[in-house]
């Protein structure tokens, strides 16, 4: 039977961001949370594989203790068990550190896993980096932005659309795949299923010590990047105001933004030649 790990993340609901005006930071503790949408698609892919071929599906997450909720949800949807990594000393990890910690948990809990599935990106930090970095950490072949997965024996065939090219790739287990939101529409959880998962769901919890990531190791292997400042973008908008006759305003606008518009529409907008005015 296949062993599948699905990495999921609990994220704040994007529509409700409690913003602390004084400190200019996000009150994550106040934000309503949910399972990251792309992670739901990854879980759905795992569950479909389970239904077709039989598989042991473990959901893995790192986060504050409350992140256990998304593991319960995953179990309610059909995962066999949940694994929570939670430790204050791991808070604020960047993708470099996160992939290292997830790899440590996978080596410990499921060293013979065949397939690791991740959501292609998260709705909060949107880096899309943890999947590829986890594959490097575990030295696995990987494909990102996958729409469709087929399995034949020990071979995995995936289809994806990248930079306007449709690719079909093949690799052997063990492998890592990040799942896009194109297909694998997530199923619904029944309330009874959810209640049951909260009562009986099989969840194991690790802290840094239990994973053998001592404080010292974290010091040495920790995040490579540092966030210096976070701010709402709205306040950063330039809000350039243009006035004048329609002809002059249009000229001014196109001269200033032709590059931006060209990039979006995929056609070149020529600079206005001096003296080209009518």
């Amino acid at each position, binding site marked *: 039977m296949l062993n599948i790990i699905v990495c999921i993340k609990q994220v*704040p609901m*994007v529509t409700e*961001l409690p913003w602390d005006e004084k400190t200019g930071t996000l009150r994550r503790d106040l934000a309503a949370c949910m399972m990251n949408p792309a992670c739901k698609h990854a879980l759905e892919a795992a569950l479909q594989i389970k239904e077709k071929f039989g598989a042991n599906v473990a959901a893995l997450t790192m986060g504050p203790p409350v992140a256990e909720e998304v593991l319960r949800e995953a179990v309610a949807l059909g995962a066999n068990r949940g694994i929570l990594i939670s430790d204050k000393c791991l808070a604020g990890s960047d*993708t*470099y550190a996160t*992939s290292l910690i997830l790899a440590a948990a996978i080596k410990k809990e499921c060293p013979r896993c065949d397939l690791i599935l991740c959501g292609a990106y998260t709705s909060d*930090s*949107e*880096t*899309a*980096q943890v999947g590829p970095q986890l594959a*490097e*950490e575990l030295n696995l072949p990987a494909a*990102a932005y996958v729409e469709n997965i087929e399995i034949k024996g020990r071979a995995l*065939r995936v289809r994806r*659309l*990248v*930079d306007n*090219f*449709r*690719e*079909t790739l*093949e*690799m052997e287990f063990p492998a890592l795949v990040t799942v896009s939101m194109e297909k694998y529409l997530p199923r619904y959880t029944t309330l009874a299923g959810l209640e049951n998962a909260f009562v009986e769901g099989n969840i194991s919890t690790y802290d840094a010590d239990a994973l053998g990531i001592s404080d010292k190791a974290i010091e040495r292997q920790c*995040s*490579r*990047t540092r*966030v*210096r*400042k*976070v*701010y*709402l973008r*709205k306040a*950063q*908008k330039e*809000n*350039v*105001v*243009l*006035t004048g006759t*329609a*002809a002059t*305003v*249009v*000229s001014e*606008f*196109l001269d200033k*933004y032709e*590059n*931006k*518009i060209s*990039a*979006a*529409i*995929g*056609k070149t*907008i*020529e600079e*206005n030649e001096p003296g080209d005015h009518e």
Partner: protein
Amino acid sequence: MNRQKSIWIFGDYRNYYQNRVTLQLISKAVDLARIIQAEVCAVVFGHEVEEWIMEYTAHGADRILAIDHPSLTSYSTENYLALIEKLARERDPEIILIGATDFGREFAPSLAKRLKTGLSADCVGLDITDEGLLLQIAPSFGGNMLAEIVTEKYRPQMATVRPGTFKEIPHNYERKAIVERLPLMDKLPQPRIRLIEYERAVAREHTIENATVIVCGGRGLNNKNNFKKLDELAKLLGGDVGATRPVVYAGWADHNALVGQAGKHIKPKILFSFGISGAIQHTAGLGEAQFIIAVNKNPQATMMKMADVAIVADASDLLNTLIKELKKRIRD
């Protein structure tokens, strides 16, 4: 070896956009290089890459590292990773910038991991801090927030950058660069991923929700005939037409075009908004629009306040003039 600092740009040339994002990054690197006294180095892998060597030189690179070999004909993350990892270890660049194409966003994290360094994703701004660090400005929460990120201790400092963020330097084919044509490494890694099929995709099923460019109109366009002109602008820009609720109720537009709370939530790179005041029922659908150009006679309208560019003018006049001017300037 003389420790000349170097800013590397990965040469991503697979199609027009990628070609451009590489040129845009070279341009930005030229600015950054001036501040930290570095050279700008483009790295290009592939087969028959002379055209790219020429382009990168003409657009501002000081040095080109090129590996040209038939076994590199198609894009391969595994091969490219092995090659650039080896080069980076030998030469120790200060900064590596990679276009945030789908390829770049799969390639860059793996490379950062191998080089044991930091990486920020899909940056919309770059600068140099007072301490001489690369300041990486990255979006999060659907572009609603920005984070300023630095990689303090580790090198290279790495970032992927969203296409269209910077403006390329106009080409100058007289420019010269040091071109190093390097041999393929002795042994490419044993491939673990096989490319079975590979074709340029036919256009994806199109809906207003995934449109890159959207032109929206409201009551300020005054009548149905004026509103219909939006079709012409949308066609020129390869975009879609959206509408506010009063316009849909008035029968100027189909219900499918309704943008807002009760309609579609859109996420275009460019949103034109003509004659729209900006009621919450409409703006609730615009949270993820990246760049908004609003046209309205009233500079105090909410839509004008939330726009990146607010043009104070009669919406219909401006629409007609814009169409006329774009017809002259757009080159396919």
